[in-house]
């Protein structure tokens, strides 16, 4: 019946490994809790640079989870992710700022996410008509359209120079340096420290909602769509509706990522939301491993944090000259780029399933003895 398509290859594999994992739920949960505590403790030790890197990574992870849903799970290639991030970021800034309606920032945040979803929904009829690489090229148009609007609609976007971002405020608590001034256990809590916890909460919410989505009926329907639309339709999946729903949800995640990036940047400029950003997001989900939430997160951290951290510490490496040295010596930035490139190649060569696959293999080894009897049952 309508449940038949649930027992496809993908879904049954997942269900089995899920059951196997059930037995090990204790240690897995403990590891997760330990990671959560560790993440919560970071603001007490790390300086602004690391917290900033962490914030960028968290925002990127939220965006990558969204793109993964769209491109990784439902197989719709999108190069337009930067556009939806921009809609979220600029939507928030305009709605909460001056000029603009000047709404309470928390409301503006929710509306900005909805606005991104709306933009995704408006684009989805096009996504319903074109497939594969052609869809990728069609979404490319969004990036250029967005660039043009961002530079020219000065009343809303501030033009080339962009706009400053009003800090988020929830119930009298502001995510900025002061107001109220906050010192926790002797550590002054500035904007980065406060935003860090906001980022953690948002990332956790996105992580669990996306995971539930992927593990539930919609997730199975989307993977069925990716593997074969005809087969999925024959099994009762409403193809057009699911394709456009994937676009809307993914755009909403992108919008949320955009808001968080805007809050972390504190000043947004059109230059950032270019094609290179879209490509970065594609790289995140490919490096992380298509189709998994954990993979998208790992990929986002890899692509976002690695170049920044390498750039900071590359001057400690041997044979690397100080920035601006005479002659044609290799500076820290070049060294960081070489290393980053090498890291990408190594990951793609030796961990073809992506970083997410690496993680899965470590935590729970493949379980062929369990799968075999399952495959024998008709």
């Amino acid at each position: 019946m309508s449940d038949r398509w649930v027992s496809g290859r993908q879904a049954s594999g997942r269900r089995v490994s899920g059951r196997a994992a059930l037995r090990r739920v204790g240690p897995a949960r403990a590891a997760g809790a330990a990671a959560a505590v560790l993440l919560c403790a970071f603001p007490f030790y790390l300086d602004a640079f690391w917290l900033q890197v962490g914030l960028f990574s968290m925002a990127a992870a939220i965006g990558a989870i969204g793109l993964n849903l769209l491109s990784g799970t439902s197989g719709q290639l999108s190069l337009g992710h930067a556009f939806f991030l921009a809609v979220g970021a600029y939507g928030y800034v305009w709605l909460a700022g001056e000029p603009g309606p000047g709404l309470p920032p928390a409301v503006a945040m929710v509306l900005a996410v909805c606005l991104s979803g709306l933009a995704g929904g408006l684009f989805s009829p096009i996504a319903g008509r074109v497939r594969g690489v052609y869809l990728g090229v069609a979404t490319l148009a969004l990036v250029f359209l967005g660039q043009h609007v961002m530079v020219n609609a000065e009343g809303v976007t501030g033009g080339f120079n962009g706009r400053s971002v009003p800090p988020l405020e929830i119930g009298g608590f502001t995510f900025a340096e002061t107001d109220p001034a906050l010192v926790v256990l002797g550590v002054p809590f500035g904007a980065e420290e406060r935003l860090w916890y906001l980022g953690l909460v948002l990332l956790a919410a996105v992580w669990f909602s996306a995971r539930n989505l992927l593990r539930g009926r919609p997730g199975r329907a989307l993977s069925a769509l990716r593997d074969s639309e005809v087969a999925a339709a024959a099994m009762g999946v409403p193809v057009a509706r699911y394709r456009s729903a994937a676009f809307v949800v993914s755009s909403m995640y992108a919008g949320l990522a955009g808001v968080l990036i805007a809050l972390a940047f504190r000043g947004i400029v059109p230059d950032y939301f270019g094609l290179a950003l879209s490509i970065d997001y594609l790289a995140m989900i490919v490096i992380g491993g298509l189709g998994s939430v954990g993979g998208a997160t790992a990929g986002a951290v890899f692509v976002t944090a690695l170049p920044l951290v390498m750039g900071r510490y590359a001057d400690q490496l041997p044979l690397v000259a100080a920035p601006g040295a005479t002659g044609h010596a290799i500076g820290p930035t070049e060294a960081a780029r070489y290393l980053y490139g090498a890291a990408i190649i190594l990951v793609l060569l030796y961990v073809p399933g992506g970083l997410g696959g690496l993680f899965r293999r470590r935590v729970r080894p493949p379980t062929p003895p369990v799968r075999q009897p399952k495959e024998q049952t008709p």
Partner: protein
Amino acid sequence: MNRIGRPAAAVAALAALALLGSGCSSKSEDASAGTGSDGVKTGRGVTEKTVQLSALTDLTGPYATLGKSIVQAQKLWADEFNKAGGVCGREVRIEVKDHGYDVQKAVSAYAEVSPDTLAMPQVIGSPMVAALLDEVEGDKILTFPQAWSADLLGKDAVQVLGTTYDLDMIRAVDFLTREQGVKKGDTIGHVYFDGDYGANALEGTRHAAQKAGLKVVPKKIKATDTDLSAQVTALRGEKVDAILISAGPTQTASLVGVAAAQGLQVPVVTSAPGYAPQLMDTPAAPALEKTLHVVSAIPELGSDLDGVRKMVKAYQKRFPGELVDSGVLSGYNAAVLLGQDLEAACEAKDLTREGLIKAHRDRAAGDAGLGAPQDFTDASQPASLSAYIHRPDKAALGGTVLVEDARKAPGAQEYLDSAGE
């Protein structure tokens, strides 16, 4: 029950550990603010021995050549400054961060250096400057951006040195009408970059052209456009009598080269960012020497000003074989002016960020001995209204020679007054 209980206990234990541990976190120490043993008030970025400056530059992106010149020039200045005793017995140090023309890298580099920075003698890249503008103003870090858009005016902590792009173009139009035979009723084309650089420059052109009774034909291009054949053909169709260009050196070379090839023999004027001495090694060199002029807020490198001569000599000695271009002079100029601010702040016994900005804003005639003096007292006004006119010359040091000494373009003051209303 048991199963859920154990992780919960582990979480509690870890949380307790983390909180205990944070007691010895280095972050809980208060930032050094107060008065040093010598009676000088200090704050972030200043210790008993050092004054920390930071530079956000581009050494690997499109402005790599410029970035390198400025970094080296400011390094030269720091060495000289420290040799002469530093400021208030403290040495200056410049931390150089390369963002490779990437906004995110610039923002993160700023987060890294800003807690311990007193001032920034260099920030390259309009998008990067724009993204950091509010933070710099909020953190009160005196900053000299290597960008000259009028949009950057009006911030106490941000100092645009010399003239802004719009003033450069007013000066250019003035030069064209006086010296190059452009007269009332003529048409001038303006090729400009999409963005604040081009938009600001066009504003100046429009104003000056209106005053002089000229018609302006604007042609917008993107930073990625490197072949301007279409624009030249269009401008030839409009029968322009002169062309202004607010773009990069590559675009200037293309424009002048294509115009020469098409037989469009009109004067071309650009501002300092539109020219680089490397153009003199391209096939467009003869055409450039013939038709191009450059408006610049700083003198040419072959200038007989004492300060310029001394700087060039020291630079060539310190970095033998390295290219000497206008970036060297503008970077050195910024550093010298900052050094004077530091000395003034030291004299007032206030080396805090606020004290430095106050010392800077108190100077009505900041003179680095490298060109026209500048007025820093009003943050909303350009520091200078005077600009030089240069001409490309292959043989000259820095690739340009002087055509007209620094002078105020007539109408510049009036333009600023009208913009203020």
